[in-house]
Every structure is written in structure tokens, then in C-alpha cells.
């Protein structure tokens, strides 16, 4: 018994992290620039893997990049080259502080999904970016479901040591317990009359958060105006 205790004491002295219960560190958050989303989530946490899913995800991402680019350097890994610089410019983004990586546009050996993950890995290891966003929205669910959980886990652990918010944009959530924050967005029925498409009603559903979770019945809604409205 004494030998066990002394062995434990020695291990604790040499590897203090090994015997301590794992505690996730709490860091700051970055505002998305949409009050309703910020109130529901507390903002996008840094040093955490977050997922934004559903319909309206690109608008939230664009707003997040616009907001973050005033204080941080941001990177967007665009797996299917679908980012619209004009929307980001209208949202007020400092485009000179945004690194845009367009995957799948050149004749490369790697398929676009692997390009996106490899690029995200390089960016996280390089450091210095406040937000690293990876847009995987246009891939089929069948393809993304093939990504092993270990990959998401590795990303979550890598970003934990950095002051970077890692955000994945997808149709549905995939990182499961590796994600610190998961938001699902839905479009609400909107007024579809008139001659000009002006706005869309969006509903925020908080699926996973490190903070105290809102009751599932509480789903804040907000209106997103088009660029010309």
C-alpha cells in the first residue's frame, strides 16, 4: 500500500497533468455581431471547436468574420469555393485581414475535403489567427460522416492550446462531444410578397454549449436583411 502511494506521489510529481481530472480552460468569446445569437451563445468561444449548422449558417459566419476582422486576423478555408466577398464587404469586414483559401480549384492530387482539413491543420499549427473557419457545407453527409471522430478530437485538442476560435460550417453537426458550441439555424416562414426579396427570418437552436444551456423551447429569432434592403 505504501509502495503504491509513493509510486503515485512520484508519478504526480513528474507528470502533474496525468493525475489531475481534465478541466477545460475557459477563454474569451468573439461576438458574431448578431445580438440574438450572442445572447443565446455568449459569443463564439476561442480555444474551442464550434459548429454552425443549418440554414443561415453562411450569414452568421460572414457576420462573425466581419466582426472579428476588426480585432483579429481571420482565415477561411473554403472547401467548395462558395464564399462571397461582396457579402462580407457589405457586412463591414476588413478583407485585407482575411486569408481566404479556395480548395478544389486547382488540379491537385488531394480531394477538396482532404485539402480543407490539411489546410486547417497547417493554419492552426502556424498560429496567430483569431478565427479559423472551415466551410464544409456543400459536401454530402455520406462523405463527412466518414471523417473519424479522432480527427475532430485532435482538432479540439490542438485549438485548446491556442487563442483561436475554430469554427466549422456544415449542414449538420458532426464533431459531437468534441465541439464546445453547436448552433443549428432554421429559416422561419417569411413574408414572400412584393417585388424585392428583402429579408429572411432565422431561428437559433442551441444544441451544445459550455455555458448553461437555454431550455429547448426558447429559440430566439431574428431577421437578416439582404444586401440591398
Amino acid at each position, binding site marked *: 500500500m505504501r509502495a503504491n502511494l509513493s509510486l503515485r506521489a512520484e508519478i504526480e510529481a513528474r507528470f502533474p497533468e496525468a493525475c489531475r481530472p481534465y478541466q477545460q480552460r475557459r477563454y474569451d468569446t468573439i461576438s458574431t455581431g448578431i445580438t440574438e445569437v450572442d445572447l443565446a451563445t455568449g459569443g463564439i468561444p476561442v480555444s474551442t471547436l464550434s459548429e454552425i449548422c443549418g440554414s443561415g449558417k453562411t450569414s452568421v459566419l460572414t457576420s462573425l468574420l*466581419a466582426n472579428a476582422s476588426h480585432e483579429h486576423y481571420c482565415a477561411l478555408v473554403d472547401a467548395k469555393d462558395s464564399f*462571397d*466577398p461582396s457579402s462580407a464587404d457589405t457586412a463591414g469586414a476588413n*478583407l485585407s485581414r482575411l486569408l481566404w483559401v*479556395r480548395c478544389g*480549384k486547382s488540379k491537385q492530387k488531394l480531394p477538396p475535403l482532404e485539402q480543407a482539413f490539411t489546410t486547417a491543420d497547417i493554419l492552426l499549427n502556424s498560429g*496567430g489567427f483569431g478565427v479559423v473557419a472551415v466551410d464544409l457545407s456543400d459536401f454530402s453527409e455520406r462523405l463527412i460522416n466518414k471523417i473519424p471522430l479522432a480527427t475532430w478530437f485532435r482538432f479540439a485538442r490542438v485549438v485548446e492550446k491556442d487563442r483561436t476560435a475554430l469554427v466549422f460550417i456544415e449542414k449538420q453537426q458532426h464533431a459531437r462531444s468534441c465541439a464546445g458550441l453547436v448552433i443549428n439555424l*432554421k429559416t422561419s416562414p417569411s413574408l414572400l410578397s412584393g417585388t424585392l*426579396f428583402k429579408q429572411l427570418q432565422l431561428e437559433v437552436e442551441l444544441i451544445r454549449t459550455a455555458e448553461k444551456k437555454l431550455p429547448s423551447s426558447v429559440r430566439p429569432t431574428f431577421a437578416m436583411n*439582404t444586401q440591398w434592403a
Partner: protein
Amino acid sequence: MFACLYVPDFSVQAVVRLEPPSTQGPLRRSPVAVLDGPANLPKVIALNDPARKLAIEVGMTKLQVETCGGVTLRKRSLDGEDAAQTGLVECANSFSPRVESTCTGTVILDLSGTEKLFGSSENIAHKISASATDQGFDLRVAVAANPDTAMYAARGFAGITVIPIHHEAERLASLRVGLLPITPEMIEILDGWGIQTFKALAALPETPLTARLGQAGLYLQKLVQGRIKRTLIPVETASTFVESYEFDDPVELLESLAFLLHRLIQQITERLMSHSLATNELRLTLDLGVAQLRDGSTGEQYKREWKLPLPTQDKNMLFAVVRLDLEHSTFAAPVKKITIEAVPIKPRHVQGDLFAPPSPEAEKLEITLARIRGVVGSTDDNGISCVGSPRIVDSHKPDAFIVQPFSSVAEALEKRTLRAVLALRMFRPAVETSVELNGEKPHFIRLWNTHRRVLAAFGPWCSSGNWWNSAAAWVHEEWDVVVKTLGVGYYRIYRDQIKGGWFIGAAFD
């Protein structure tokens, strides 16, 4: 005082200098001969002392040299000799602004006024020698009161020689008259008189010497007595920083190329540093070993240019950027010659800003971007970069943008008003579709092989442009449509009036 830097067996040293650092030392100690001439009968034009000990001489054919055994043979590199001469001048330039490139392998510099900076003449000579050794030269240095005395002392004596003022004739006395710029006829005459050394020539009476050999004879006598005073002809500082290397046999592997590239980049950065300069633009030209054509013209060239957002002197960073790019390039033929050029610029001196946002480290960022380019490629089919910062083009054309190089160098940002907007997801290229109209409005639309009913359509919004250029002209009739899918989808579709079809340009998301 004047110092002369003399590189013995210059052609050999110029070739050895281009070898990888690990092989330079052993090569200097082993016999090396440099060959030149027609491809079918190359002859020795230069060799080093270990090769001379093997009884190899200038003019021997390659076959004759190979029979001696143990001799490393190298092809003459004129580019390498130019680069070596430039390196020698730059080495001298770091000690004095007045430098004369007297001839190949010989450089003379004026030391007047440098004593306070570098110490005594002997100290300066040692410092010059150490600096030249760092640049890959094994040279002789001589310091004397006039340029010619320094030059003959450097050519005649090994190591470092310092000749005090008024002792020139005494110190040069033992040298052979063959070192002088002298015609064969004159050598024959002097031989006939039994004159072999500088001392013997210096001792001849002036008047009879002038009567027999003319003014040329008198000039030679003054040279050996160390009495010739002349002004230096300073070289202009080089404004281009180019290094090149031609392979004996074309190389196919990147590893072989990388060895040389690293060496050339190191030499360029050392030269830049000696001028207190940096570079923000690197140009690489690879001459590919394509067979010579009948008209005499040869080969393709692979050209590549890297523009860095900030000036740097970091050889490892420059090498990493070049290597990562070349790793993903393919060449039509093996590489015959490498030429690398750095565009000089003043170095960047900045102080860290406490209030600046955390940013990727500027030097490290270039390597990161090069690695990303290696993964996703450099440009798309339209020549737009795949990695960089987006910039909106001043045009009415939908989805008009360019991608600029990304930089983390602090810059003044304009105040922007933040405004959350409904963003578009672009389809690049636009997806061709078919639309059924009800009157003028879209009624049904084909979305990925499924016909969907249009719940609402807003439009049409017409735009056109570039009518003066038929290839770039566009005439669009745009509609924003709400489509019944599993839920509800919001799309921007357009009719291309020139091509005459319907396309899905973007989705609201």
C-alpha cells in the same frame, strides 16, 4: 596603404565554391582539374596544387588526366567565375568603399582611413582573409604602400604579407620576373642577360636599360622597385544580385536541385547582408535540358517569381518558400542550369506594437502560405490566386473579385460600419438548369435533377457589361426565387441572354 586580394587557381576555386558546404573542404585538399573546350575534346585549363603534384598540367586532355587517377574533374563555369569575382569585390567592399577589380581573381582596395575602424594593416589583412574564407575563398592577401607592389606580393607570396613603406624593393626581391606583364621577346632578352629575379632587374643601371628596352623596360624596373604610383579605378557597386550554376549533367531530382538552391540563396543573402540590404522579390529561372534544335536554339525555361510582403534576409525562409513551391511543380525535362535573382530593397526595421492585434508571425507566414499553396494549388483556371485576401473589383459584373497576397504587416484600417446581412453562397461555376415560366415569372425549376415548384420569384433585375469585348461580355436577367425543397430554399438564378440558358448563380444562406 593598399591591400590586394588574390585568389590562386581562380577557375578551380570558382567551381569548388558552388559545391555543397560538406564537400567543399575535402575538394580543396584533393586534386581538382577544370576542363573547357569542345565537347569531344575538353582540355585542362586550370588545376590546384594537389593536382600539380600528380604531374597534371594545363592543356592535358580529359583522357590523359583520367589515366592519372584520383583527380576530380569539373566543367568550367563562366557564370560561377562571374559570381566568384562579384563575391570577391563585395568582400573587399565591406572593408573599403574604393575597390578596383583589377582582373579575374585579383582585387585591390584602398585602405586609407580604415585604420581607426579595423586596426593595423596586419589586423585588416587578417580580417579580410577571414571574411573571404567565410565566402568560400582560399586567398592570399598583401598590404603595401602602392597598388602594384601589393598585387605582385599577393601573387608571389602565400598567406598574408605586409610590406612596410620604403621596403618594397627589398621584399619583392626574390620574386621571378615571369610575374611581370612582360612580352615573350623581352623575357628572352632578360634571360640572355641572366636576369631571373626582381632583385636583378632592380639593380640594372637606368640609362643603359632604357637605351636597350625603351620606356617599357624603365617601367618594369620601377615596378620591381615598388616606385610606381597610380590611382585605383573603383568598380561601381552591383545593383543586381544574381547567382547561377550550370550542371555538368542535367538533374532530375529535387533533392539534387535543393542542395544547389540552398547554396545559391545563402550566397545571395550573404551578399545582401554585406550591402545592408534585404529582398522582397525572388526570381528563379531553370534552363531545362531540351535537345538542341537545328537552328541552334535550345531549351525551354521554367520561370518563377515570388513576391514577399516584407523584406527579409532570412536564407532559410527564402529557401523554404522556393522549395515548397518546386515540390509541386513538374518540368518537361531535367534541369541544366539554375539562375536565381534577388531584388534588393532596404531592410524592414519596425518596433512591436503593444496595441496591435495578435497576428501570424510575418516571416513564418510566408512558409505557411507556401505550404498551403502546395496543398490547394497556386491559381485556378482563370488565373486567380487560390490563397490570399479577397478584394472586390470595381465592376457591375456579379461575383467580380480578385485575390491579393495576404500579409500580416500592420496597416492602417479604415473604419467600417458593421451590418449583419443575408449572405450568398456562390456556385463557381454557375450550375446550368432549366426553368419553366408562368408568363414572365419562373414557375418550376430543375434543382439537381429534381423539378421543384417556385413559391415566390422576385425580379427580373437586368444587368449587362463589357459589350466591347465579346469574350467577356455578359447580359443577365436575374431572379431571386424561393423554391419548395425538403424545406424551403432561396436561390439566385439568371438567364444568360448571350449563351441563352438558365443558371443557378448563388444560394441565400
